[in-house]
């Protein structure tokens, strides 16, 4: 039937206030999440003497600058956190402040609190807002001017993206995770491969993922260029959300679930592009360069850059020699955390590798939220990390972006469960290798990049 629609189109239509003659839509925003970096936007609306259009739909979170270790906090970091607090108070919005028991990374606590629900349009001034699409939401990152616009109007201008379906057929092998699926497709399509598209993930391997895994997969959509990634909600989604503080409850819950079940692409829906991948062939994957597209199976080798000035410059920055086996690359330190891989399942997986073993390099573990932290402590995971010699820190964006001072020193090489291996991302001159939390844990034990699967034998 010609009326068959994709999930993206259904959600788009439900939020479209109007569509201008040039094809740009004005969309209603159900949830707007702000953080310390939103200070430019608050200043913009103050400068115009405007107030928030819908403070009850706006939520503030301290995450990017959140200190994760004890001790003195630098004055500019204190100021950033205080500015958000002042703006939140003046605007009358709920703030998940630094010492709130529900504080954490915005893309971890949104779902954790049930602020993220199927069918919502969710914006945040952060590119990893695509994470929330894991629940069948239309979620995308925006810049400061757009944040100001949403604060002032609760709407956002946006051109309807093209649609891409990425299907992962088959089942993932043991020790292979959503992170590996994401790095796999990004390396296949390129870091700009999904530019202009909204990606919907489908297929057996996606259905088999937990919500944590689905969030990891959708989170990394932006690293392939897609502003939004999404997965149709199902019983796994509903089981995760049931009983969350801001989610509907009682009779309203049943009614909501009945509606949410309609949020899927119709069988005959036409996508602008379809990509089909075989999950069973995906190996634990690591990056070797300074773009997430520079990803290869751990059995691979650093590529030769004879023909490419870009590759030569990348290898120079990374301090790598072409042809080197990836699993022989020695590391200086590890980091486990971030909005990509800082959830309880990520910590459980890393702990499976580390239990009863010692890390031979230093490392930091920063849970994605205070609630994840508490749960990890209750489950005995924190103790495993500490006994392995890693530092167990507080919740926040931490060493993924280094704004709080958790930095990788110049020239140091870090195996990291984060989302960006960009030049200088984890600190000036830092060398980042992206991989799953389990792979990070394995690298910590061996002191070099390594295939986690032998270390997981008998443990999963």
């Amino acid at each position, binding site marked *: 039937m010609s009326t068959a629609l994709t999930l993206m189109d259904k959600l788009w239509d439900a939020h479209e206030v109007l569509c201008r003659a040039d094809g740009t839509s004005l969309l209603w925003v159900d949830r707007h999440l702000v953080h310390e970096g939103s200070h430019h936007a608050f200043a913009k609306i103050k400068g115009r003497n405007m107030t928030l259009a819908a403070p009850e739909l706006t939520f503030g979170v301290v995450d990017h600058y959140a200190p994760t270790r004890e001790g003195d906090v630098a004055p500019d970091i204190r100021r950033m956190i205080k500015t958000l607090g002042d703006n939140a108070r003046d605007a009358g919005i709920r703030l998940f402040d630094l010492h709130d028991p529900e504080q954490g990374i915005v893309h971890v606590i949104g779902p954790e609190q049930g602020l993220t629900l199927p069918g919502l349009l969710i914006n945040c001034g952060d590119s990893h807002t695509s994470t929330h699409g894991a629940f069948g939401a239309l979620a995308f990152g925006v810049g400061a*001017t757009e944040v100001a*616009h949403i604060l002032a109007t609760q709407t956002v201008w946006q051109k309807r993206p093209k649609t891409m379906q990425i299907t992962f057929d088959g089942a993932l092998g043991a020790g292979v995770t959503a992170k590996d699926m994401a790095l796999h497709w990004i390396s296949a399509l390129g870091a*700009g491969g999904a530019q202009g598209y909204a990606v919907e993930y489908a297929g057996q391997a996606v259905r088999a993922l937990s919500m944590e895994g689905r969030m990891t997969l959708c989170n990394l959509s932006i690293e392939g260029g897609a502003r939004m990634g999404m997965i149709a909600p199902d019983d796994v989604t509903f089981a995760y959300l049931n009983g969350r503080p*801001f989610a509907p409850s009682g009779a309203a819950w049943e009614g909501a679930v009945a509606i949410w079940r309609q949020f899927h692409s119709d069988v005959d829906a036409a996508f602008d592009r379809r990509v089909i991948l075989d999950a069973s062939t995906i190996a634990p994957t690591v990056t070797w360069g300074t773009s997430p597209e520079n990803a290869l199976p751990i059995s691979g080798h650093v590529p030769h850059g004879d023909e490419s000035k870009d590759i030569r410059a990348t290898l120079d920055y990374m301090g790598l020699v072409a042809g080197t086996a990836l699993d022989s690359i020695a590391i200086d330190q590890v980091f486990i955390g971030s909005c990509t891989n800082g959830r309880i399942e990520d910590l459980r997986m890393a702990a499976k590798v580390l239990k009863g073993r010692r890390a031979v390099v230093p490392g930091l573990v920063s849970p994605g939220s205070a609630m994840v932290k508490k749960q990890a402590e209750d489950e005995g995971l924190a103790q495993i990390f500490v006994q392995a010699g890693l530092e167990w820190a507080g919740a926040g964006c931490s060493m993924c*972006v280094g704004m709080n001072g958790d930095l990788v020193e110049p020239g140091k090489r870090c195996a990291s469960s984060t989302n960006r291996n960009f*030049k200088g991302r984890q600190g000036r001159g830092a060398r980042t290798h992206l991989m799953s939390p389990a792979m990070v844990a394995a690298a910590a034990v061996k002191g070099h990049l390594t295939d986690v699967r032998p270390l997981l034998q008998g443990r999963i």
Partner: protein
Amino acid sequence: MSGWETLTGSAIAMPEANIDTDQLIPARFMSQPRSAGYGDFLLHDVRKAQAQHSLDRYAPKVLVAGRNFGSGSSREAAVYALVDYGIRAVFAPSFGDIFAGNAVNNGLLTAQIDDDVAALLFAKMADAETDARVDLAIGRATISGHDIGFDLDPVRRQKLINGWDDIDLTAQYADQIRTFRGARLATHPWAMPTT
């Protein structure tokens, strides 16, 4: 913000692919107030790592860059750094989506050019500074003697020329937003946060 319709100045080439917003402005500068200007932060660490970077030798208004320029973080500060430095237009085969949206809200043109046009310009420009002229009204530019057409949708053109951002443009739709909001609340009670 003031708009612009034509610009005449110089251009430089930065052929690398994937110049992301973390490179355009390292995170540590983002707690600085905008009032002092973000121009010195533009590609700060790349410039410091390289003697005589072309951004330090010249004062271009136009960049010709490799694919996927401005990918990554949504930080609008990357655009502030470009604009405060004096860049008004970037020509590249592709741009990060969020970056391109941020650019037009701050008077920065992001113009898409074909890969072969980019390759031609990179070869001709090398490390030198070259003349550039950009005309938004007709969607054409001359860079290093090459006449280049670029697509610019009418609203983006209007915003750049008039220096408007979206808040200015949305005011006229206030009634429609109010109506939509009322209907959404009435028909989608589950979409409201419960506590």
